[in-house]
C-alpha cells in the first residue's frame, strides 16, 4: 500500500483530539445522567476541558509542526489564535451560567455545542488546505446556528438562528465555489501549492479568490456581507451574542489572514484592493449605522462590524507589521467585547434583562463601580488613549501607513472619530441622566469577567510588551 504513516503524527492534533473526545464524553454524561444538576456539571466540566486543551496547546513542542500530509499546521500564529479562541469560548461558557440555570432552558447540549464549535475554530485556525478550511468552517458554523436558536420558544431567537443558517449556507456555497475555481486553476488545494502556482493574477484565480473572500467576509461580518449581524446579535440570547462577537471572529480572522498571506502572496495587489474596499466600507457602516441604534445588542453588532473593518486595515497592508497589528487588535477586541457583554448581561431589573440604551440612565449613581468599568470599556472601544483599544488601532494604522495606504489610514481615523460619538452617548446617558431605577446585584462570575477585562484594558499601556512580542512572533511565523 502506498500509504505510510510518515507525516501523520498525532502529536500536533493532540489538543483537538482531547477536545473532541472530551466533548463526546460530556455528551454521554449529559444524555445518561438524570436532569437536575446535569447542565451545571456539564458546563463546569466543559470549562475545565477547554482549559486543559489550552494547556496542551501551549505544551506542544515549539516551532512549526505539520501533520496529515501538511494539511494541518501548528505554528506560533495558530497557537496564539487558538489560545485566544479558547479563552473566548471558556469565558462565554462562564457568562452563560445564569442563562442556563433557568429551568425552562436547562439544555446541557449548549456547552457541548460550544465545545464542538471551538473544535471547528481550532481546525480552522490550523487549516493549511482548502478542504480543511471548509470542514473547520462548517463545524464551527453549524454549532453556531444551533446555539443562536437555542432559546427556541422565543420567536426572535428562532428567527436569528434561521436567518444565520440560511445566509451562512449561502456564504458557504460561495466559498466552496471559489475554492473549486482555485483548485481548477492551480491543480491543488494546498496553501503552499497554491502559492507556488499563483505567480500572476489570472482572471480565473482572481475570480475564485473573490468568491473565497466573500465567504470569509461573511464569517467576520464585514461589509457588504454584514446584513445578518444586527438581527442575529439582537435575536440570539445575550450569552450567545457574546460568543458570536468573540471566539468565531478570532477564528474567521485567523483563516482570513492565513489564506491571504500564505496562499496568495504572489498577487498581493489583487486582494489588497478588495480588502481596502471591505475595510473602508465596514468602518464607515459600523460608525454611521450605529448612531441611530437604541438597542445595546444591535449597537454592539454595528460596533463589531466596524472593529472587523479596523482589523482588516492591518491585513490589507499585507506585511508582517500588518499581521501583527491584526493579532494585537483581535486580542484586545476579544477582551473589550467580553467585558462589555458582562456588563450587558448584568443589566437586569426585576429579573427582566434590559437591552435599551436608555436603561443605562444614571448607572453612575446607582452602581458607580459598574458604570466606571463600562465607561472605560467604551472609551477603549472608541480608541481613546491610553486605553488598550487605542493601541489596537495604533498598530493597524501604523502598518497601513508603512505600506503606503494613506487614504485607508486617514479614513480609518476619521470613522473612528465618528464611532466615538455613539460610545460617548452611552457614557453621557450613564453619567448625566436621571437614574431609571436600581439594577439587580451583579453575579460573581460576571463581576470577575468584567474586572479582568477592565483591568486588562486600563493597564495594558503599562506593560504591553508580552502581548506585542508574542503577536510579533506569531505574525513572523506566517512569512
Amino acid at each position, binding site marked *: 500500500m502506498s*500509504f505510510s504513516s510518515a507525516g501523520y503524527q498525532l502529536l500536533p492534533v493532540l489538543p483537538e483530539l482531547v477536545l473532541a473526545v472530551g466533548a463526546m464524553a460530556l455528551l454521554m454524561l449529559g444524555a445518561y445522567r438524570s436532569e437536575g444538576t446535569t447542565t451545571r456539571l456539564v458546563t463546569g466540566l466543559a470549562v475545565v476541558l477547554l482549559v486543559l486543551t489550552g494547556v496542551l496547546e501551549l505544551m506542544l513542542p515549539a516551532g512549526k509542526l505539520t501533520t496529515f500530509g501538511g494539511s494541518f499546521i501548528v505554528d506560533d500564529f495558530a497557537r496564539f489564535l487558538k489560545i485566544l479562541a479558547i479563552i473566548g469560548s471558556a469565558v462565554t461558557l462562564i457568562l452563560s451560567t445564569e442563562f442556563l440555570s433557568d429551568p425552562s432552558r436547562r439544555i446541557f447540549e449548549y456547552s457541548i*455545542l460550544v465545545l464542538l464549535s471551538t473544535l471547528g475554530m481550532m481546525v480552522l485556525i490550523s487549516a493549511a488546505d482548502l478542504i480543511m478550511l471548509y470542514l473547520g468552517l462548517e463545524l464551527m458554523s453549524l454549532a453556531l446556528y444551533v446555539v443562536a436558536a437555542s432559546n427556541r420558544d422565543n420567536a426572535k431567537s428562532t428567527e436569528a438562528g434561521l436567518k444565520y443558517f440560511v445566509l451562512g449556507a449561502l456564504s458557504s456555497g460561495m466559498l466552496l465555489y471559489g475554492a473549486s475555481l482555485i483548485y481548477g486553476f492551480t491543480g491543488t488545494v494546498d496553501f503552499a501549492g497554491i502559492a507556488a*502556482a499563483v505567480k500572476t493574477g489570472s482572471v480565473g484565480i482572481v475570480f475564485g479568490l473573490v468568491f473565497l473572500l466573500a465567504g470569509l467576509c461573511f464569517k467576520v461580518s464585514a461589509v457588504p456581507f454584514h446584513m445578518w449581524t444586527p438581527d442575529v446579535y439582537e435575536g440570539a440570547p445575550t450569552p450567545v451574542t457574546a460568543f458570536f462577537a468573540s471566539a468565531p471572529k478570532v477564528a474567521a480572522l485567523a483563516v482570513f489572514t492565513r489564506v491571504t498571506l500564505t496562499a496568495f502572496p504572489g498577487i498581493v495587489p489583487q486582494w489588497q484592493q478588495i480588502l481596502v474596499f471591505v475595510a473602508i466600507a465596514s468602518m464607515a457602516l459600523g460608525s454611521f449605522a450605529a448612531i441611530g441604534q437604541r438597542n445595546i445588542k444591535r449597537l454592539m453588532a454595528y460596533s463589531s462590524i466596524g472593529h472587523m473593518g479596523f482589523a482588516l486595515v492591518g491585513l490589507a497592508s499585507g506585511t508582517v507589521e500588518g499581521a501583527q497589528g491584526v493579532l494585537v487588535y483581535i486580542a484586545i477586541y476579544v477582551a473589550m467585547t467580553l467585558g462589555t457583554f458582562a456588563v450587558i448581561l448584568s443589566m437586569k431589573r426585576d429579573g427582566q434583562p434590559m437591552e435599551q440604551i436608555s436603561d443605562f440612565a444614571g448607572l453612575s449613581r446607582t452602581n458607580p463601580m459598574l458604570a466606571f468599568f463600562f465607561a472605560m470599556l467604551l472609551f477603549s472601544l472608541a480608541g481613546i488613549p491610553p486605553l488598550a483599544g487605542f493601541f489596537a488601532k495604533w498598530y493597524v494604522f501604523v502598518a497601513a501607513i508603512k505600506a503606503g495606504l494613506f487614504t485607508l489610514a486617514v479614513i480609518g481615523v476619521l470613522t473612528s472619530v465618528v464611532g466615538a460619538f455613539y460610545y460617548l452617548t452611552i457614557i453621557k446617558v450613564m453619567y448625566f441622566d436621571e437614574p431609571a431605577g436600581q439594577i439587580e446585584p451583579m453575579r460573581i462570575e460576571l463581576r470577575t469577567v468584567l474586572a479582568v477585562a477592565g483591568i486588562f484594558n486600563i493597564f495594558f499601556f503599562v506593560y504591553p510588551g508580552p502581548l506585542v512580542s508574542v503577536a510579533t512572533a506569531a505574525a513572523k511565523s506566517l512569512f
Partner: protein
Amino acid sequence: MILPALFFYLFAGVCVASAVMVIVSRNPVHSVLYLILAFVNASGLFVLMGAEFLGMMLIVVYVGAVAVLFLFVIMMLDVDFTELREGFLEYLPIGLVIGGIFLAELLLVAGGWVMKPDTAKQITAAIPTNVSNTEALGLVLYTKYIHYFQIAGMVLLVAMIGAIVLTLRHKAKVKRQDINVQNARTPELAMAVRKVASGQGLQDSDAAEWVK
C-alpha cells in the same frame, strides 16, 4: 465515439430541462419528481465520466433519501405554495438582470481558461488504473484522508445534536417506556394470589391492592 456524445447530450439536456421544471411547475409534488429526474440524469453523467461510485451514491443518497424526505415534508406540511410563489414574477426581472451579468462574467472567465500544464501532475492522489472506483476511494479515504473523514463525522454529530436540541420536547403527560422498570418487574409485583372463598368472589379491598 458518437454514442457517448449522444448520451451526454441526452442526459445533460434532460437534466437541465427537468431542473427548469423544478422551479416552474405549479404542483410541488411534481417539482420533487422533476428533481429526482434531474438527479438520475446527473448520475448518468457521472457514469459516463467513469465515476460510477459517485453516480450510484447520487442515486442512493439524493434520490433514495433526500428527495423522498422532501416528498414527505411537502405532503405532510400544509404549506401554501401558490402564496410563496406570488413574489416570483415580481422579482423575476431583477433576478434575470443579475443572473445575466453573472453569466457574462463567468463566460469571460471560462473564455480565458488556461489549464496549467502541470495541473494533472499536481493532483494529490494519483488515480490507480487497476482498481475499481470504489476501491480507489476506499484506499485513500480511511488512510490518507482520515482527518477529513473524521472531521466530517464531527460535523454530522453537530447536525444530530442540533436537530435534537431544537425539536425534542419532553412532554409531561406522555407515558414513556422505561425499560429498567419493566425489567425490574417481578411476578410478586405484578400478581397477587388470593384464596377465594367459594360463592364470595374478591372483595373491593383486595382489588385495590391488586391494581398496582
